[in-house]
């Protein structure tokens, strides 16, 4: 593993009884980027996050955090890591400020003024004296982000940080995370909201069934893995698939699940979607809809064999 990486895993494996959660996960997260960690439900994202924060231990494989090995006995490496894993955790009978102070007493020493600075950053100064039991989900999430930033970490691990945030909160969070990456910190974000990750991340890793299926800069992925999706009558799928394979090459056509009408995905330059339409029309197959794009959704669906993420954004109609 390279020491220029903020985070790296090699052959990470974890089972829960008979269930395989991670099956040899290899991640390479460069320093100073926002890394989008994507995968369908149950792909192993949260298990990975829990291993990276020492909450659970891997059955096999290794982890390197900020250039040094991390495992049992290396808990102090987490002094330079901030995290928000699953739901934010607070004492309901304490105020937001008191909760941050209580948390600041653990782990790396944190200056007292840092609590108020962070409350200001996440927009909770006005509610700092309100008990957390009276907070909305979005406010708890913002307090969770503040808690993750307490020790001014070099590496930030955030599991679904946009959960419960309103649109303004999401924009604010995105700006904050981008600013952190610009200042040299590394932000590792797992999310289901593909559009959000597309706007925020520099690098993405897509995980499915406990393994990494693609990793790379978002610009490269979007530039090389464009796709066209075509909706046809179910009885025309076989014929359409054959035609499109002749056009785009063998193995580049996928039947997409989840609709009454049949969607077919074609790995093809999105700017040449009309060509797809022409080939089908010449064979008497009239697509009821064609969508083209080089967005994360198509890449994600293709790489995860169609396992849906939650609330994927629509593609741009061609």
């Amino acid at each position, binding site marked *: 593993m390279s020491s220029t990486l903020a985070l790296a895993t090699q052959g990470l494996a974890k089972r829960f009884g008979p269930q395989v959660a991670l099956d040899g996960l290899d991640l390479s997260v460069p320093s100073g980027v926002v890394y989008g960690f994507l995968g369908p439900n149950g792909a192993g994202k949260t298990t990975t996050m829990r291993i990276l924060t*020492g909450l659970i*231990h891997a059955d096999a494989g290794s982890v390197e955090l900020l250039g040094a090995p991390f495992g049992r006995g290396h808990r102090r490496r987490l002094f330079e890591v901030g995290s928000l894993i699953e739901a934010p*955790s607070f004492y309901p009978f*304490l105020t937001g400020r008191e909760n941050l102070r209580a948390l600041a*007493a653990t782990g790396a020493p944190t200056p007292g003024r840092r609590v108020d600075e962070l409350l200001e950053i996440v927009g909770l100064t006005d509610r700092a004296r309100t008990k957390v039991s009276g907070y909305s989900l979005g406010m708890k999430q913002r307090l969770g982000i503040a808690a993750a930033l307490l*020790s001014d970490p070099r590496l930030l691990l955030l599991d679904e940080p946009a959960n419960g945030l309103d649109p303004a909160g999401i924009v604010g969070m995105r700006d904050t995370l981008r600013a952190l990456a610009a200042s040299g910190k590394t932000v590792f974000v797992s999310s289901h909201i593909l559009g959000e990750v597309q706007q925020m991340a520099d690098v993405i890793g897509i995980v499915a069934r406990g393994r990494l299926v693609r990793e790379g800069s978002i610009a490269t992925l979007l530039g090389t893995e464009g796709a066209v999706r075509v909706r046809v009558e179910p009885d025309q799928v076989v014929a359409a698939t054959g035609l499109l394979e002749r056009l785009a090459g063998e193995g580049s056509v996928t039947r997409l699940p989840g609709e009454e009408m049949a969607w077919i995905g074609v790995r093809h330059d999105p700017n040449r979607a009309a060509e797809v339409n022409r080939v089908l029309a010449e064979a008497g197959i009239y697509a009821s809809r064609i969508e083209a794009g080089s967005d994360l959704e198509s890449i994600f669906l293709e790489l995860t064999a169609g396992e849906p993420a939650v609330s994927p954004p629509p593609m741009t109609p061609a």
Partner: protein
Amino acid sequence: MRIFVASLRKLVRRPASWVTLLLTVVLLALVFLALGATARQLADEPGGEDVLLLLTFPDAYTNVLGFILGLGGLLAVIYGAAVAGSEWTWGTLKAAVARGEGRTWYLLMTFAAILVLLAAGLLLAYVAGVALAAIGALLAGVSTSGMGELDTLRRLPEQLARGWLALGEQAALGFAVATIARSQLAGVGVGIGAYFAESFASIFRLDIVQYLPFNAAGAVVPVGGSASAGGQPLPILDPNTAVVVVLVYLVAALVVAGLFTERAEIGG
């Protein structure tokens, strides 16, 4: 030390701390005021003169402590379980561990804060209990001239310290059970169940049950007199032996809780 101070602040702000203290004082008030109001009538009945002794100082000093420990034992189990269980239920242990905090250290500092709160709670409840016993004595027309008896007053700090140890042991048991159950509710439920199971078992085999944690805690403070059944004295641990047994349970409970937490996979 930071964690200890933070834990202390958390417990002081926690409603359960004040509710537990209030409950103890309210029950003490009910017992001693009711005794005071009815003692005269009860004293006229055969064996009723013992009721007056409960309110007579200096013995009332020990009686108040006996009531607090009898009542407080169960409350201490519940309190210990509630504090430990909520660390899992609310995910606050998870947050501390993810910040690189030592699991066992965090656990021990949390329990140290519980011990301090128990000491303060015991002291406050005891002062309130003595005042209520004095009011009860006045209601019953019993003299309170024995309140200044020096011998008893000199023994009070040791008795309170022994009582604190007994409460600490019972809180540690609730703490350990809730840690293993990873749940506030399960910890409280199992803690209460074990408390009553031991009380019930003492009907049959007190020779064995006297070494079990709750009975041993009950024997730590010498209360004077001796228990008997059918004219035969019941086997109850000698107070000094009870201190050793209680210390063993306290340390064992914390070791078990620490080992479990150290090895646990923390989720949710």
